[in-house]
């Protein structure tokens, strides 16, 4: 057991921290702040990093990476997440869409889709949930009819992140065989978002303008060479992707950054001596530590070649609840002035950081599998409890 990073890993982390200091605008509030300029900045930032080969630094060399190890990748992800994700929507490419194409893609698909991700030039969205298929994802009905050299897709997806950025490509889960049973007969298609028949309707959310969308598919033609993985076995493909997504975002790093800012704030405003404030901030900071260690445990297992699905879920449970607590408790500490939560407001404490933390984490326990679905997975896989009815 070793609770310290190697000097080599630390030097790598410092290099990226310096890079962020240099590249982030002085008034950068994070990709998720209510700031339309932020998206344009993330495109520029990714292209910059891509030009220097730094965007996909942990990917294999053959796909444009530098094979930086798991811990360097972890440090990189922590810095990006803590800094409000300056990679914007493209974090998804790096965390799971790219790795899924590496795992399931044909040689031609890898050659076609991975280099643009490495260059930071492409935005992907995803199409999983449907109006009647949320937690019960296997109930999805969007249909892809097999016409030999192409599929024709018709249906509706919802909660498609970043589709209106606009997204260039889409990782789409569809039903290819309606007679094969609920979890069989699904396939994953890589869909060009400029294809005729696609309509994107942004959904205004509590969190701002560019997060979630409805996407309608009206007889969209998708070439057969855009099928990812085996026909009718898309459920397994997406399952791998969701595991990657669950451990890909180091939420504890953002939570810890906000807690550190809150500590600075109470020191600067003369409130650091309040017993209640001290207790609350200490408790949040300890929970950051717990969530981080659970993530590191899962990553340590990955390093040994294991597939820590249950460990990834427990880490995610801790981290999502933590992110919510930091926003909720942080606002309670700030009190009335915490109501001003927009960076545009002159008197917003910490430029609205804590209010943003609260609102953006309302869905933390909903996306990529609700807290309840996560708990069902852990109950059945790690504890061997019977399936719930």
């Amino acid at each position, binding site marked *: 057991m070793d*609770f*310290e990073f190697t000097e080599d890993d630390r030097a790598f982390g410092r290099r990226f921290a310096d890079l962020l200091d240099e590249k982030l605008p002085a008034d950068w509030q994070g990709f998720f702040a209510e700031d339309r300029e932020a998206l344009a900045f993330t495109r520029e930032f990714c292209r910059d990093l891509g030009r220097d080969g730094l965007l996909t630094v942990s990917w294999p060399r053959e796909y444009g990476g530098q094979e930086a190890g798991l811990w360097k990748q972890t440090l990189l992800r922590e810095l990006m997440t803590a800094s409000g994700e300056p990679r914007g929507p493209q974090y998804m490419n790096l965390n799971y869409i790219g790795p899924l194409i590496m795992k399931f893609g044909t040689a031609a698909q890898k050659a076609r889709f991975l280099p643009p991700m490495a260059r930071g030039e492409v935005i992907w969205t995803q199409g999983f949930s449907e109006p009647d298929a949320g937690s019960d994802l296997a109930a999805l009905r969007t249909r892809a009819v097999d016409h030999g050299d192409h599929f024709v897709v018709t249906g509706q997806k919802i909660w498609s992140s970043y589709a209106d950025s606009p997204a260039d490509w889409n990782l789409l889960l569809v039903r290819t065989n309606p007679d094969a049973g609920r979890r069989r007969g699904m396939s994953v298609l890589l869909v060009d978002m400029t294809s005729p028949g696609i309509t994107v309707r942004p959904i205004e959310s509590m969190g701002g303008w560019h997060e979630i969308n409805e996407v309608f598919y009206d007889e969209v033609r998708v070439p057969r060479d855009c099928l990812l993985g085996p026909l009718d076995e898309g459920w397994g493909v997406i399952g791998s992707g969701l595991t990657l997504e669950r451990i890909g975002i180091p939420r504890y790093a953002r939570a810890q950054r906000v807690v550190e800012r809150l*500590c600075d704030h109470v020191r600067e405003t003369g409130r650091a001596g309040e017993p209640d404030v001290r207790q609350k901030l*200490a408790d949040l900071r*300890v929970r950051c530590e717990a969530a981080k260690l659970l993530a590191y445990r899962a990553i340590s297992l990955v390093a040994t070649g294991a597939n820590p699905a249950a460990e990834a879920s*427990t880490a995610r449970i801790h981290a999502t609840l933590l992110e919510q607590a930091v926003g909720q408790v942080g606002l309670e500490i700030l009190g009335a002035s915490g109501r001003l939560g927009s960076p545009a407001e002159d008197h917003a404490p910490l430029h609205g950081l804590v209010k943003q933390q609260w609102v953006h984490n309302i869905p933390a326990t909903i996306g990529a599998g609700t807290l309840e679905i996560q708990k069902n997975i852990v109950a059945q896989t790690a504890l061997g409890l019977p399936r719930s009815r």
Partner: protein
Amino acid sequence: MDLTLSGEQRLLADTVRDLVERECPPDLVREIEKSERGYGDGHWKTLAGLGLTGLLLGEEFGGAGQGVLDLVVAAEELGRGAMPTPLLASAVFAATVIDLAGSAAQRARWRPAIGAGTAIATMAVLEPGARDEWGAPDAALTPHGAGHRLTGTKILVPYAHVADVLVVTVKVAGVAVAGSAPGAGSVPAADASTPGADASTPGAGVAAGAGSGGGRGLVLVDPGAPGVTLRRQHDGGGEPVFEVVLRDVEVNAEDLLGTPAVAGPALAVALDRMTVASTAYAIGGAQRALDLSVEHARSRRQFGQPIGAFQSVAHRCVDMLTDVEACRYLCYQAAWKLDAAWKLDAAGKLDAAGKVDTAGRLDAPGAADFEVAAAKSFANDAIRRVFTHAHQVHGAIGFSMEHDLQLHSRRGKTFELSYGGSTWHRERVARALRL
């Protein structure tokens, strides 16, 4: 960075687990708890034979020279079986104090024997009304002839009835030890609105008595000496504990353990080690409570199905698992950090040499403040949650003495109330965060 146990550590865990399952079944624990002795003498010899009593002992004395992390791995398995044992009280808590504060003669007298398990030492720290072990003692030494006399009352002293030596904390008048507070000088002085801005301020733990102009000392006392009276107490925690009344007990120069300037910091380090070791033991009990709950949820049927098929029950079990796992890794980290701060030197002595300043004070006793306080504050709350869920999942049967759950939930509550409560340790975290 690597959060997996080494092959040796996994082997140690397996060995201790097998031993506990084989030699310490729950019915035997019940029997031992009712006995005069309060622990199994055979178990003690087996643990000593395995080398657990000598795990933290330097190689100069024939010990294994290993760290708290290895001890934690073993302690969790002992806790899983609720085995009553003086191991932590003697070979961790008292042993560390003697390692750090003892003279060459005192170490030579006690450490090999404690390490071999042929002698048992125990700490007499708490006094009536005490909230935690960091509070300033009232037991006092008064000069008498060439030596001193010791008078005071200690409570909840584990295994005092079989101890060969008691290590007693005492008030020492007129010795200021403020400079030995961890980070003293850089930590802003607590203002009047800070809770516990007195001798027992967390994080300033070893500055005990500084405010009242007194320090604290450590004294070795023979439990059979004239003026020492033991009375069994019952805290329901599964260990034999005693009130120790000290009335004009003779204390000679060779019984004083370290100067007051060293004694306070040595006690602080020993308390950190003991806090972490007892957390590991409690995690073992919490893990067992989870295992029992899962077994029950799988086998108990109501409304025509196993109760574990109800999400409200299953999700409680998952909450227990996530809490136990978080406790475990916080505990490992604290142990690792303590080992990084307090290594055995080339001669096999716990390295205090580099940490004694020019005034003879032991420096940096707070090297693992954040990690230890994080582990204990989280574990206190998390383990309380785990046992609340475990009892709820079990229903009425879990409340009966014939069920094994109570063996662990009673110990869990004792753990929560020992070596600092959540609020106390969170205040310590706040200080480590420079709040």
